[in-house]
């Protein structure tokens, strides 16, 4: 059972024009990297549905979320101030499974960089020193300071900002996978990036673990709207699995990206 109720806002920090970092008081919970919380974005009944946001970082007594302003829901979350309360359900979803992983590679793109902070942190905590992290941005990077506290092995790509690898993080990924052997690539990012990463990893024979996004309603597995097409190895047909329950992390080899 997940927590349902109000958590206090401890801090709400502007990261850049689009992104803010919302810090909530922690409740008692074992949070796995890659899990998410489903936020009621206002005290009133509108917007109707909750908004799923991945855990970006767990610190003592705090849960931090990095949120990109998209529409009304995220705009309302950006207005929260220290001392306010916000209603959440969580943690939800499966989260990343690091069991048995010897040499992990962490990849994040865009707002998908955020959940990889906690992924990197948990990997470090479980003994992986200097986890390799690849980050991709369209513009100026954010959150690098957070990663720098966790690991020294960070490579950054940006499509437009100066001073980083020019282009996509997938180019970095190919280089890195060519240069060394990894037994698990943990990824979050936009749809096109996940698709590309899954293909690259498949081609190179490395297992990828994708944190997928899909529009949600209940977030707890009851309504079946958050479907993800999964075809397990050796099976002749696909299954429609629930992103909120069996996911949001799915094996890259099994996801059917068909649009």
């Amino acid at each position, binding site marked *: *059972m*997940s927590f*349902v109720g109000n958590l206090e806002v401890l801090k709400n920090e502007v990261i850049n024009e689009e992104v803010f970092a919302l810090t909530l008081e922690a409740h008692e919970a074992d949070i796995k990297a890659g899990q998410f919380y489903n936020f*009621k974005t206002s005290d009133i*009944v*509108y*917007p*109707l*549905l*909750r908004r799923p946001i991945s855990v970006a970082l767990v610190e003592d007594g705090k849960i931090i979320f990095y949120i990109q302003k998209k529409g009304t829901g995220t705009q309302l979350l950006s207005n929260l101030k220290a001392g306010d309360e916000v209603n959440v*359900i969580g943690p939800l979803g499966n989260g990343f499974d690091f069991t048995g992983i010897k040499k992990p590679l962490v990849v994040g793109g865009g707002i998908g960089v955020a959940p990889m902070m906690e992924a990197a942190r948990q990997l470090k905590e479980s003994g992986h020193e200097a986890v390799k992290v690849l980050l991709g941005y369209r513009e100026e990077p954010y959150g690098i300071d957070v990663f720098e506290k966790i690991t020294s092995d960070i490579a950054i790509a940006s499509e437009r900002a100066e001073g980083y690898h020019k282009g996509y993080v997938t180019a970095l990924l190919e280089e890195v996978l060519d240069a060394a052997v990894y037994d698990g690539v943990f990824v979050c990012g936009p749809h096109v990036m996940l698709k590309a990463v899954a293909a690259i990893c498949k081609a190179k024979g490395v297992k990828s673990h994708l944190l997928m996004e*899909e*529009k*949600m*309603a*209940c*977030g*707890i*597995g*009851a*309504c*079946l*709207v*958050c*479907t*993800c*097409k999964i075809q397990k190895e050796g099976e002749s047909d*696909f*299954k*429609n699995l629930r992103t909120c*329950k069996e996911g949001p992390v799915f094996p890259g080899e099994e996801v059917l990206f*068909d649009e």
Partner: protein
Amino acid sequence: MNKLDLSVDLNGLLLKNPITVASGTFGFGREYADYIDLNNIGGISVKGLTLLPRKGNPAPRVIETPMGMINSVGLQNPGVDVFVEEEIPFLRQFDTKIIANINGNTVEDYCGIAERLSAADVDSLELNISCPNVKNGGMAFGTDPKMVAHVVSEVRRVAKKHLIVKLSPNVTNIGEIAKIAEANGADALSLINTLTGMAIDINTRKPLIANVIGGLSGPAVKPVAIKLVHDVYKAVQIPIIGMGGIMKWEDGIEFMLAGADAISIGTANFVNPKVTEEVLEGMTGYFNKNGICSPQEIKGGVTYQK
């Protein structure tokens, strides 16, 4: 002062209280068992069942709209056999009625599943007539009086259970359809199913639902649902389960005043997994405050001249 007895009798289906949950919004109850005590709900209408397992529609299956949502899950379900073997035993742990929501694309499909479930441990069958009739150009069964008469009478013939017919709101005259369902053997009616809706992404120019159209639910539809429940109340004698946009206990009372004997909560579960218990508490408070001994006392209690 008389004591409040929350139970309602839906023409043979006795619910311990008038709060049920709407098909497709509560899975088979497992997920919500983490958040509420399922013993507190009068009945659970399970995810829409078909004879064979169904994968359902591709994503996106949902889009939020102003105070509503459009969904097109496409009846993803494990099929009636898995339901009988795996889900009924789970649900039977709780003291709540099991309402099996049955679906088909032909009358034979409907009859097949009704027969199968007549031999199973469920309390009621809810015949969802909003499904497209593949033998009739895909027009929904529930929108054509003749098809309604046919499918309800055929299912009635084979169904050895309490039978609810779930009405589509996408019709000109719901009272007429309700009467036909009643005349052909429905023990009770439930309404409304979702309104048909559509939304388009103006940048990609694609529908925001992969299936192009979907079903609109949530508070946005409540005024339509109240109106239709009242229409059906005026048209038939059999009990009514009212639904469509119920978010709080006040909405539940409103449906009962419009003509419902019991209510069903759908979309609201997604926002607040504990909403059923909160609605039960609020409605109980209203009954007590107003000296009402049985929920069915207020059925159709709206007053006006005309």
